[in-house]
């Protein structure tokens, strides 16, 4: 049942990403999903789910397999650091963490696609997209908390 729920959530996330745009930039909610898996389930589960979601994203985008797989896997792995293994989670840290991880995710995708294939968009457009997607995701980091964290306030 949990797996079906996750599949549903993943598909719904891709569906939403394709339907909305802010300043002509589609949001990167899949990074949020991977971040959530990482802080809730741990580094290896985050890495695994991140790579699965990344593989799906690569397939949907029609580009080669690997760029999103790598970036999402890394996001999943490092988001587990926010759950207490390295940092003590606070809402502000959560917001900064998700912002930075979204930035890392997009930067890896842009860099690997530029290196292994062709540049997917101009540097200026890429920078704009990366910053906007990070800013969209950052506030949501306030609410995505690790399992064993006490609610504050």
């Amino acid at each position, binding site marked *: 049942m949990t797996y079906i729920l996750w599949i549903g959530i993943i*598909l719904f996330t*891709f*569906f939403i*990403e*394709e*339907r909305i*745009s802010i300043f*002509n*930039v*589609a949001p*990167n909610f899949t990074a949020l999903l991977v971040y959530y898996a990482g802080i809730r389930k741990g*580094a*290896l589960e985050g*890495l695994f789910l991140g*790579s699965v979601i990344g*593989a*799906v*994203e*690569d*397939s*949907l*985008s*029609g*580009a*080669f*397999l*690997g*760029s999103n*797989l*790598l970036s999402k*896997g*890394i996001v999943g*792995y490092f988001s587990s650091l926010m759950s207490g293994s390295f940092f003590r989670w606070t809402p502000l840290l959560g917001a900064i963490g998700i912002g930075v991880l979204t930035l890392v995710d997009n930067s890896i*995708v*842009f860099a*690997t*696609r530029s290196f*292994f*294939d*062709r*540049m*997917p*968009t*101009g540097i*200026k*457009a*890429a920078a*704009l*997209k990366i910053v906007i997607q990070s800013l969209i995701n950052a506030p949501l980091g306030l609410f995505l908390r690790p399992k064993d964290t006490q609610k504050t306030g």
Partner: protein
Amino acid sequence: MPKKRLLLFLFIILSLGLMTYQSKKEYFVPLRFLNNTLTNLHRIVNSVRDTATSPFKRMFIREEENTRLKTELRRLLEEQQKYQETLLENRRLNELLSLKERKHGYVTTARVVSRGADQWSNTFVLDKGYSDGVTKDMTAITSKGLVGKIIQVSTSSSSLLLLTDLNFSAAVRLQESRREGILAGTGLRRCQLKYIPPDEEVKQGVAVITSGLDSLFPQGLPVGYVSKVEKKGTGLFQNIEVTPFQDNAEVEEVAIITR
């Protein structure tokens, strides 16, 4: 090295290896079928939304449309008279020059279902595919002008690369001076007109049309207008910015044509 870090290291090496292999050989796209699932999902949601909102839309639009059509009809009748003479003259000249009236090969009209799944490209997913006669490299236009070209086709849907995408380019010419150039996307909302030498006088507002020299787009399609001209330094070419006539954010339906 702890087990977790070793796994992460192996994962990174494997991913880089996979990408290196694909850059030399062919791409792996294992879950391509999910594209159809998402397209169908978009189609269902659009259909439900249209069913729910169309009666209200029709009600509001009808009155406005009626007034507009009456004014339009009056204006068109006046213009029809005015252009009649020009049309007849044009026909005579065409016959004299034995020129065939060029026809744009209309294929079908497609609706924009969603944005492309690739966040880095400026693409749209259209609801028409092979079964409707759409093939790769066909041109998509609206009444305002060129929108882009078809880059990928499946049975019932296709991907449209917009002219603002970095990987889009088309042979164009300035309508007034007939100077040829290459229009390229920038990834942003505007395009760039390349290879116009600095001695060419280009004014803002001049229309840009397709030249047809790339054997891809039909000749004479309106593309956009010059919105910024920069003659910086001693460069070989001018830096010209073109704003497309058709804003991507307004595209709902496109006509697919072939050359």
